[in-house]
């Protein structure tokens, strides 16, 4: 598996700046088991449910990531403003976005723990953009991320933007998470 090199296509869901982990998955929902397939689905249902309604799915607003009676989203790429994922260390945050069907997040900057959790847990891939694309992309636009070319194309608007290389975490993203990486490197015994 070489996640880093795959082109990711999907509909964009746009958010503003400083989307914190309480907005991504409010604390009251952190009680479900991530192991139980039935309970796990609720992380998908409540993903981004803490975002104030008017700021959910910009620029229109009032668009939920996941419809009320659903567990997965029709959107697969989040485009956010600066400091995406600030706040708590809850890994449930990138996990809930993953469970909701999000594959990648594009933002100019990420909060440290969220970024790290996204990578080490093998959840969503955090791509840093050179400019704040939340000002350019509209919710529902068709987006393609080309990691090898380090570009993002907005098919709907026929525009293209640069993203930064993943840098030192690329190996972990490629491996699919810190455990897979550590096994490849011989740091821990290969299970099974």
């Amino acid at each position, binding site marked *: 598996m070489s996640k880093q090199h795959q082109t990711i296509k999907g509909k964009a869901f746009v958010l503003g700046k400083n989307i914190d982990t309480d907005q991504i998955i409010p604390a009251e929902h*952190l009680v479900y088991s991530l192991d139980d397939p039935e309970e796990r689905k609720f992380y998908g249902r409540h993903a981004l449910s803490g975002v104030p309604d008017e700021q959910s799915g910009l620029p229109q607003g009032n668009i939920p990531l996941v419809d009320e009676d659903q567990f997965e989203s029709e959107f697969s790429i989040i485009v956010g403003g600066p*400091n995406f994922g600030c706040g708590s*260390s809850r890994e449930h945050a990138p996990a809930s976005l993953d469970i909701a069907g999000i594959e990648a997040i594009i933002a100019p900057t990420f909060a*440290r*723990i969220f970024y790290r959790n996204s990578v080490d847990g093998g959840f969503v891939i955090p791509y840093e953009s050179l400019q704040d694309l939340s000002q350019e992309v509209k919710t529902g636009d068709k987006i393609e991320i080309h990691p090898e070319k380090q570009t993002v194309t907005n098919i709907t608007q026929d525009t293209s933007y640069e993203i930064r290389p993943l840098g030192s975490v690329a190996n972990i993203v490629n491996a699919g998470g810190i455990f897979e990486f550590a096994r490849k490197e011989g740091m821990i015994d290969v299970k099974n």
Partner: protein
Amino acid sequence: MGMTLTEKILANHSDAASVEPGESVWVNVDVLMTHDVCGPPSISIFRDQFGEDARVWDKEKLVIIPDHYIFTEDKYANRNVDILRAFAADQDLPYFYDVGSEDYKGVCHIALPEEGFTRPGEVLFGTDSHTCTAGAFGQFATGIGNTDAAFIMGTGQLWVKVPETMRFDFHGTSMPPYLMAKDIILQIIGDIGVDGATYRTMEFGGPGISCMTMEDRMTLTNMVIEAGGKNGVVEPDATTEAYVKQRTDKPFEPVYSDPDANYHSKYQYNLEEMVPMIAKPHSPDNKARVIDLEGTTLDRAYIGSCTGGKLSDFKAAAEIIAGNNLKIDTYIVPATTEIADGLETETLNGKPLIDIFREAGCKIGQASCAACLGGPSDTFGRLNNQEVCISTTNRNYPGRMGSKESKVYLASPYTVAASAITGKVTDPRVFIHETII
């Protein structure tokens, strides 16, 4: 080139003789802390990755402190504590502070120093973003997720990107009587922004730091994550040593920044020129001087959490509340059971603090995180509607304390207490001049 305290600790705990900001190193972990929210999924990943019969790398170094969702009827939240309990028994963990037992402590970030786990020069990871609090003791301490915690449980190691260090020097020889560490950190976060320290260390020093208690320093380092900081740190001194030696017999080696260490940036603050500060909804960097918001109507006051529920915080609040009636519902939540005991034994003018709060009509909760982060709907003090709350906690994001319709102002215990008396945002200096100076 010299190293900062943080760089030096990371070098000491890796194979490297020296480290530089930006490079990734694998460090050996001295303490891993987890709690009831992130412990169960971390345990699950640990078992999944290392096998059902796997043993943690060093049971003396794993500390489990349930604190978040403790006093609730929520069956899933209670199940989380059951999972911790079973794991601690299975692994024979000596440091599990079980709910309902004599060992129960309360909020992990305050329990860790109380129990002697915050030792200068060491590396501490915790599955909670406010793990950075322990940096007050000259320790490298930062928050991680479940996967990283599971990795440490199995290997005792974790990769770390060495952060650049920002230096904050305090000038002045004493804290003005109306100023609290909370005012200082709200000023700094407001100055640099909620992402002003992303991926970096915030190192606090200067002559002013020596007049701060360990509790003051913990308030500073607790909130570095609110500026995006990886860790906060204060160089150890006699105050640090006295606290730590009172709490543990384990040896430790204090580490200090070299005089020629390289800093990303340097900031200067004069304690004597600082004033009570407040963070407006919905961001910790949405700063204002309290005096400029005076008269803002409030529905509730909340004094508690890892950043505002220490004994010094309640002493400060009691100084202002004593003998006054409160205009709004005021919640008191001690961070730990030790602090709860302190409310009974600590007195002001001969009266226990707990009596001062009771007589004023405060609602007093049990030691835990309580409403600091919302939690299940029956959580003590949770904001369930459109309340406007002034709080000593550390975050005021939309919906943080419960309802998306609520609003939270962050302030010092002095300011929260003064505002509880008037029902409006109130500069505490009025009350402090009357009662203390």
